[in-house]
């Protein structure tokens, strides 16, 4: 949107023409507010050039305009029906589907929701043709993909690749010499370890939304996972039970392992909980929120295992800390008022 906004608007206009729409919106996350002036200027210059507004290019049957809408930055508003709710001025809570936006979208009218990359590609295809677009990429994934590379690499930034490129190639190009894992497609995407670096980026192999977060060997994978777990607690919209409650339960379990209090039973619990969230949540956010945990349990088991206690079970709370109030009330500070934690845990079934 910074460098190719005009191309995106062009693509939206093409879409408007194809489906017969009169109004388009750009939904801009609050974090990108700094782009507003530039985007407005671009829209205005398109209007002045007769490429937006009434009777585009002099064709009285073709009128289309684009408005900017600024969201408050909720992650869930990336879900298309939550985005539409937010666009209508309501809470960003995903709708029940069906009906889908294609029939009941903005103000219950048929609506196309696409990301900027798709619209930019559409504009190019309109000019250069499908053949040109399909000449790159793989059999099932035509064209190119934008990848946003960040994390432990020498040259972070946005890269464009034909579909089918290997993960290893991408890492080499951005100067990620020592990667142990990558979080692909953001926190809700998938975490992959070096074992999968020869896989190819395309729909038939490793599909990705576009973001690549590189973790090198100096990092503790579990630190990253812990961040993601906290992130989803913050971003859950709170509508449905598995995501609203599950994200907090999962965070607590990750924290428990991270602080060295976890046991094998907790890892099993994470898997079960993650499964309930994955299949039970109302929208994609809750369904994908456990991905970082579930993936890393498979791909980086050692990140968890080296922190586990050897016992089979440990309570979720600290018994000694729980007794603090009782000690305070009775004024006791003698050694017998403190529990021997090791002995206690050993005595658990």
């Amino acid at each position, binding site marked *: 949107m910074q460098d190719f906004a005009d191309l995106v608007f062009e693509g939206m206009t093409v879409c408007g023409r194809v489906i017969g729409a009169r109004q388009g919106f750009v939904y801009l996350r609050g974090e990108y507010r700094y782009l507003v002036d530039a985007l407005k200027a671009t829209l205005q210059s398109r209007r002045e050039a007769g490429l937006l507004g009434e009777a585009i290019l002099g064709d009285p049957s073709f009128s289309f305009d684009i408005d900017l809408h600024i969201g408050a930055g*909720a992650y869930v508003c990336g879900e298309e029906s939550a985005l539409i709710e937010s666009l209508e001025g309501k809470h960003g809570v995903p709708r*029940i589907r*069906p009906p889908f936006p294609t029939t009941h979208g903005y103000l219950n009218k048929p609506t196309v929701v696409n990301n900027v990359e798709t619209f930019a590609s559409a504009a190019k295809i309109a000019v250069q043709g499908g053949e040109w677009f399909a000449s790159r990429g793989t059999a099932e994934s035509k064209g190119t993909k934008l990848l946003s590379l960040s994390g432990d690499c020498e040259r972070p930034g946005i890269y464009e690749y034909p579909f089918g490129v290997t993960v290893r190639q991408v890492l080499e190009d951005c100067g990620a010499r020592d990667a142990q894992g990558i979080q692909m497609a953001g926190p809700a995407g998938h975490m992959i370890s070096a074992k999968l670096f020869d896989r190819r980026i395309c729909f038939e192999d490793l599909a990705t939304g576009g973001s690549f977060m590189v973790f090198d060997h100096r990092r503790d994978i579990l630190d990253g996972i812990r961040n993601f777990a906290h992130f989803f*607690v*913050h*971003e*859950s*919209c*709170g*509508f*449905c*039970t*598995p995501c*609203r*409650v*599950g*994200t*907090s*339960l999962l965070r*607590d379990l990750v924290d428990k392992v991270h602080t060295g209090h976890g046991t094998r039973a907790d890892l099993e619990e994470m898997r*079960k*909980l993650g*499964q*309930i969230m994955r*299949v*039970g*949540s*109302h929208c994609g956010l809750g369904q994908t929120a456990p991905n970082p945990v579930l993936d890393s349990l498979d791909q980086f088991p050692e990140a968890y295992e080296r922190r586990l206690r050897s016992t089979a079970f440990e309570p*979720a*709370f600290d018994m000694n800390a729980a007794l603090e109030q009782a000690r305070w009330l009775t004024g006791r500070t003698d050694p017998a008022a403190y529990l021997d934690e090791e002995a206690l845990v050993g005595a658990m079934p």
Partner: protein
Amino acid sequence: MSEELSFTLDGRRVPFQDGQTIMTAALAAGFYIPHLCFNPEFTPHGSCRVCLVKINGRMQASCTTPAAAGQTVLSEIEEVREMRRGILQMLFVEGNHVCPACEKSGACQLQAVAYYAGMLAPHYTHFYPRRPVDASHPDALIDFNRCILCELCVRASRDVDGKNVFAVQGRGIKAHLVVNTPSGKLGATDFNITDKAAQVCPTGTILRKHSGYEIPIGQRLYDRKPINVVGDVAALAVSKGGRRHD
């Protein structure tokens, strides 16, 4: 006569009409699928996820999924029951549910569904949220500790009573039910104990004052028979002459 549309639920044939969901069709035919945020008198909400069933191999909410001819729906299989128990356990630990001390015990849908689903303990770590009780209204009491955010009271007040007394505020785990007044107190609203919103709570959150324990605990609706027999499925099944599943 044209062929009757139908799907199967745990192997039994369920007829349906266009526009019905798996849930409404099943209930109309007298088959119970556990539910909390769904109420036959309201449009589906899809938030509690207790009604998850396996439809053609995929887990989906039965209250929001349209019925379609030939679907294979599985509800009483261990995979679904385990999922359902997990979701119910989440609801129990999210709030403060002390059933033996609750006026609604025995008439509470949450408790009854939990019994039906075979939930024996809350399993997860309790959140123990602090949620003050609102006793400001002369005829009703709100114990927010028991709210499961099904939004039935929100919907009833808005769509039936035309009053908009309730709303949900906050996001994620901080989402909570509020009363739509500057003070946040029910006493400051035109809420009336005869309102629809006063009758729909599936838990012991919105309670009537001045009339506790008229039916002793142990003799209440779900104390006597499980919810799949005496819940809303019974009323509907009788009216349609359908069979009950027990």
